[in-house]
């Protein structure tokens, strides 16, 4: 199943998240992640939704979202080059003596250790999903006590190579 990232610009009114989430449930679409926050315009929010499905399902999903009165626009971001980011906090079983070793792992990922306790420390990492997954694999052997990830936020790249622009 293909993964897609779509941006949904919505009126910032009560219940709008429920409307969007409900549509996924009602129509049998899956939500992998959803993030909502302010947009560049007062009164409008932007939702970034990652979902799976073939082209027909995606087409139908976009059309159904467009039918919602509070939806202003729907953009299929992942069809063109885009920048996407996720944030994760990872609590790893480790003592301060392992700090140097762990720093060696997280640094190439431009992640950082943001809290240190007697038996655990917290790694903060941002990047696309794959990068975070890769770091998790490396941290796994130490023991991951707690993990929290945001959904992804994304934006189309400003310069789209001619060939990629369809």
């Amino acid at each position, binding site marked *: 199943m293909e993964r897609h990232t779509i941006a949904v610009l919505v*009126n910032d009114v009560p*219940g709008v998240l*429920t409307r969007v989430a*409900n549509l996924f449930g*009602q129509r049998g679409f899956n939500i992998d992640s959803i993030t909502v926050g302010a947009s560049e315009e007062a009164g409008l929010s932007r939702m970034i939704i990652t979902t799976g499905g073939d082209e027909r399902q995606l*087409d139908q999903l976009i*059309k159904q979202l467009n*039918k919602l*009165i509070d939806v*202003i626009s729907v953009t299929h971001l992942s069809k063109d080059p885009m920048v996407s980011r996720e944030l994760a906090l990872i609590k790893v079983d480790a003592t301060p003596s392992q700090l140097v070793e762990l720093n060696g792992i997280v640094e190439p990922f431009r992640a950082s250790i943001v809290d240190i306790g007697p038996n655990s420390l917290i790694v903060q990492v941002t990047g696309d999903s794959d990068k975070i997954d890769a770091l998790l694999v490396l941290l796994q052997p130490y023991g991951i006590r707690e993990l929290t990830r945001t959904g992804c936020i994304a934006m189309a790249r400003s310069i789209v190579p001619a060939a990629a622009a369809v």
Partner: protein
Amino acid sequence: MSVEAAALTNRISGADIGMGEVLTGAETLLRCLILEQVEYVFGYPGGAVLPIYDSLYSSRLKHILTRHEQGAIHAADGYARATGKPGVVIATSGPGATNLVTGIATAQMDSIPLVCITGNVAQHLIGSDAFQEANITGITLPITKHNYMVRDIRDLPRIVKEAFYIATTGRPGPVLIDIPKDVSNAKAPFYYPEKVEIRGYVPTRVPSDEDIEKFLQVIQAAKKPVILAGGGVIAANADSELLAFAEKTRIPVINTFMGLGGFPGDHELALNMPGMHGSYAANQALLNADCVIGMGARFDDRITMGRTKEFAPHAKIVHIDIDPAELGKNVATMLPIAGDVKSTLRKVLPLAQACDTAEWLAQLKAWQEAYPYRYKKVEGELKPQEVIEMLYETTQGDAIITTDVGQHQMWVAQYYKFKRTRSLISSGGLGTMGFGFPAAIGAQLAHPGRTVIAVVGDGGFQMTNQELAILHQYNVPVKVVILNNKCLGMVRQWQELFYDNRYSQVDLSNSPDFVKLAEAYGVKGMRATTPAEAREVWKEALAYDGPVVIDFQVTEEENVYPMVAAGNTLDQMVMGDE
């Protein structure tokens, strides 16, 4: 008169609608309804809508007090289907609001414009599980085109204006407005907006010249084209355009169940209904067509049988629909056209030419003649199909017929040839039992001069028969035709065919005496058990100036044929008894 004109007249005349006048939320609501040219409101009072009912007391709006909120909303729906104007219903909070749910879902599935107004508890109580509190906007989220909760009286006029606009434009549908009691009681100067602007809502779509060009090419190349005309033809008031288009191009027309009446059923190009209980000719047309033109039809699974890949296997499919999400939703289309049927046909009509369909039409005619709808007559026994044929003969396809859901509904579709648009009123998408009778009340109020017949089963009628009170109270001359087979007929049919005659919970032989029931409500009741009696009684009922309930006691174990069993394809039709 347009809404703007009405507003203007009222402002100029300084009559009872003044702009800037300080009004309560309840008064504001009712003035908005008058400005929207609402004629009838169907509803039921209660604590949370008391301010509204108090204002109704001195309003010029006509309110119909039904005996159940479900009756109110189906009546509003019947009014909307019969007129194309939005139906309006008012219910109180909590149980009043939840009693609307079936009716809202019914309207949503068939794209019927409704504005539903519900009361709610005062805002400071919302979320506290207060007495008669229900989160009706949450409950109706998936079954409304849109819904609102009014949090400030100053938003109320805009919201009502938007609600009517949303309900009636684009693909129509139900819109709900929930008004907390403190908003109904609050006061503010009244201003009604002149225009509606909803960003991101694009209700009107006219196809591009390029689409029209492609469309013409496809039909000109076709040898065996067929139009599949759905409810969208009726919603768009495109019946005369469809007639002109079909006659000019000589393309035959299949009407879906929701589309019946959108094209005259007795026309030489008419093929009746396709699908599960459709005609042999209509199903053969789909199986053999090289081009299917869907117009405001959504390729529902009662037509495709869910086997969308095997549906119309040789055809290029053109699909015209106001709702872009319908294009490609159920079947893969060769040419999707986003546009309402009326404006599309208006663009196409001057350019269209006659297609070379003589041979195809001859083939279809042969199928129609070889396999008409038929049933076995038995001496002295009253067959349900015979009753419908009688209704057709005596009204010449001119009556408004509402139905409930079940076998009688399918017999109406088969044996009554609807000639006029908006003359079949039935719950197609949701298949709501209990719909037909209250919907007839709404249709009759909308058209006091026309014959309105509610054809109902003995099962469905008992879901909303308390609305008999309305017939008497407001003297609404609906003719209620009960096809009484003493059972839940359609369920019994499935149990006979697919569950080895194990008739589980379908016996209705203990129903009340419907004649006495009618009389108890002050309505004339009649009964017929033989074909001869049926003719006599029906003649009297038609001539009678007022409401009548007729208990037609029909053959109990009669099945609807032809039939394509769910999961089969259209070529696996069972032709039935004869």
